């Protein structure tokens, strides 16, 4: 049996002393979408300052439910000191959070975790989000567009319930797709990031199928040379991530996936949120909170 690289982990913790902040975050705005989905903007300047795509916050949803819930950060404004999270109010904790009102204050710790690490050798990036797994993809798209480097991102999102935004026709053409498949998240259009949606639920302007099938169509439209400069990034249900890993393997393209697991401390102390990751020396159990949440797809044991 291989031992996870514990010295590295300790060194990692030491290097990251005081890198996670405990803040009382005030709810400054909330948007409600069908199927009990919410986008909340919280005032959390210290967390916003350090947030990166893939990082998350651990939020206490109510005093009666003291164990925190991990939520991916969807957007962060360093200048205005806020972060945005998206969630579906499933379960007792997130139901309580969903009933919050403007001005309510929540204890959060964040930003937590190793996020996505884009590789400049592969400027074509396919950002695949499923259901309430879309937040880090939105964050990654915004971050790539704001960098000096010439990234070429495309965002593909899937959902079987209404999308947690008002989908609208995109002004950015995707000539690899039938022109009827033209809906997007308007925010991404505003950032000039091409995006398309997939669903089996028959929503207007969406690809009728899984987001991974849509992703495959996109990859098929690329030349082999283009694919060698492509990387996949994904967050969503485990079954979707598994399909992404398979897709990536089929095309010999690397993929980074963001995982989730029930979590207690979220700072690496309890080893409660581990997943099985294949290392060069054999199987390891790694913590989603601080060893992840983003892992190389080819190393995840699904």
């Amino acid at each position, binding site marked *: *049996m291989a*031992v*996870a690289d*514990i*010295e590295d982990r*300790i*060194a990692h*913790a*030491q290097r*990251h*002393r*005081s*890198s*996670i*902040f*405990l803040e009382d975050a005030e709810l400054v705005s909330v948007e409600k979408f069908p199927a009990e989905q919410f986008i909340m903007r919280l005032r959390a300047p*210290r967390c916003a300052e350090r947030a990166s795509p893939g990082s998350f916050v651990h939020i*206490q949803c109510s005093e009666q*439910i*003291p*164990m*925190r819930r991990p939520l991916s950060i969807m957007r962060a404004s360093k200048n205005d000191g806020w972060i945005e999270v998206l969630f579906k109010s499933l379960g007792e*904790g997130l139901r309580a959070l969903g009933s919050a009102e403007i001005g309510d204050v929540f*204890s959060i*710790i964040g930003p937590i975790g190793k996020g996505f690490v884009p590789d400049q050798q592969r400027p074509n990036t396919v950002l695949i989000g499923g259901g309430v797994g879309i937040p880090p993809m939105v964050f990654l798209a915004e971050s790539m567009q704001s960098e000096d480097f010439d990234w070429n991102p495309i965002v593909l999102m899937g959902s079987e319930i209404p999308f947690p935004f008002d989908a609208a026709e995109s002004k950015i053409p995707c000539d690899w797709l039938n022109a009827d498949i033209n809906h997007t998240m308007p925010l991404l259009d505003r950032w000039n990031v091409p995006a398309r949606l997939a669903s089996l639920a028959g929503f207007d302007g969406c690809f009728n199928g899984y987001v991974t099938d849509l992703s495959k169509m996109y990859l098929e439209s690329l030349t082999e040379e283009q694919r060698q400069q492509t990387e996949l990034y994904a967050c969503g249900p485990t079954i979707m991530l598994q399909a992404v890993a398979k897709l990536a393997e089929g095309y010999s393209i690397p993929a980074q996936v963001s995982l989730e*697991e*029930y*979590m*207690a*401390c979220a*700072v*690496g*102390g*309890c*080893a*409660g*949120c*581990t*997943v*099985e990751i294949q290392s060069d020396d054999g*199987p*390891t*159990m790694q913590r989603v909170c*601080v060893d992840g949440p983003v892992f190389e797809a080819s190393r995840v044991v699904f």
Partner: protein
Amino acid sequence: MAVTLPVTPAPLNTDFCGLTLNSPIVLLSGCVGFGEEYTRVDGFSNADVGAVVLKGTTRESRLGNQPHRVYETPAGMLNAIGLQNPGMDRVVDHILPGLDFAETRFFANVCGSTIDDYAAVTKRFDDSPIDAIEINISCPNIKQGGVSFGNYPDMSAKVVAACRAQTSKPIIAKLSPNQTDIQENARLCIEAGADALAVINTVMGMAIDTENRRPVIGNVRGGLSGPAIKPIALLKVHQVYEIAGPRNIPIIGQGGIVSARDAIEFLLAGATTVGVGTALFYDPMACKKINTGLADYLKVRQLQSVSQLVGALQL
């Protein structure tokens, strides 16, 4: 080696097995990894606690249990981590040298599948800067060892005696609440050479997902911690103090402590130090708050030392 900095109010200084702790708070094994993890949180400091008990360590490395390993339940949580650790050699050779013993004391937590395992791990820690060694005879989440020793007083005593023979460092026997007669277990552990007792480990429990009709916890059963078990733990401390008190054996009282008031209850019941674990998951600054609350309680009552509360329960 271990020079403790007086960062907490002096009345909180606590004598424990001949060691001076700068607070009666002990961070519990399994909650803070190998001592550095919580320092990621800005404002958290190991210097706020008297001691940190490191993650349970076995002779060989262990991967631990399959997910899910943790789950929130009313006023608490279940866990079944399964003693994931890199093995004693890696802990002693690579982790301990990286810890800052000037901030706090560090205790090891040893576990094994056989008595021989316990003795071997204890011996390994004997030749290390570790300040004390906790013997985990009550882990409910592994297939062999752990609570299969701790639920039987005779077996508990055999494990303690085997460890005693390997070290002159203070030994703490961590007792299980999942047994019929904790007083008998405490008595035999003391006679076998335990210098202190940790009371209690988690209470065994389970949770079921009604959608898929499966246990939530991968290991089926897990250990329940948090405020839900506080009354159970408090009674066990009270009972064990009847045995340990007259023999001058200190108790680490633990189980659901989240506030200074909780800590004071455990001290009054007979604990010399108080363990904090799940409370950190609620609030990473819990220890600072408990220290402040304890100091205020002493000041208001014009007490000079937290030790004046130990076993001061009026019956």
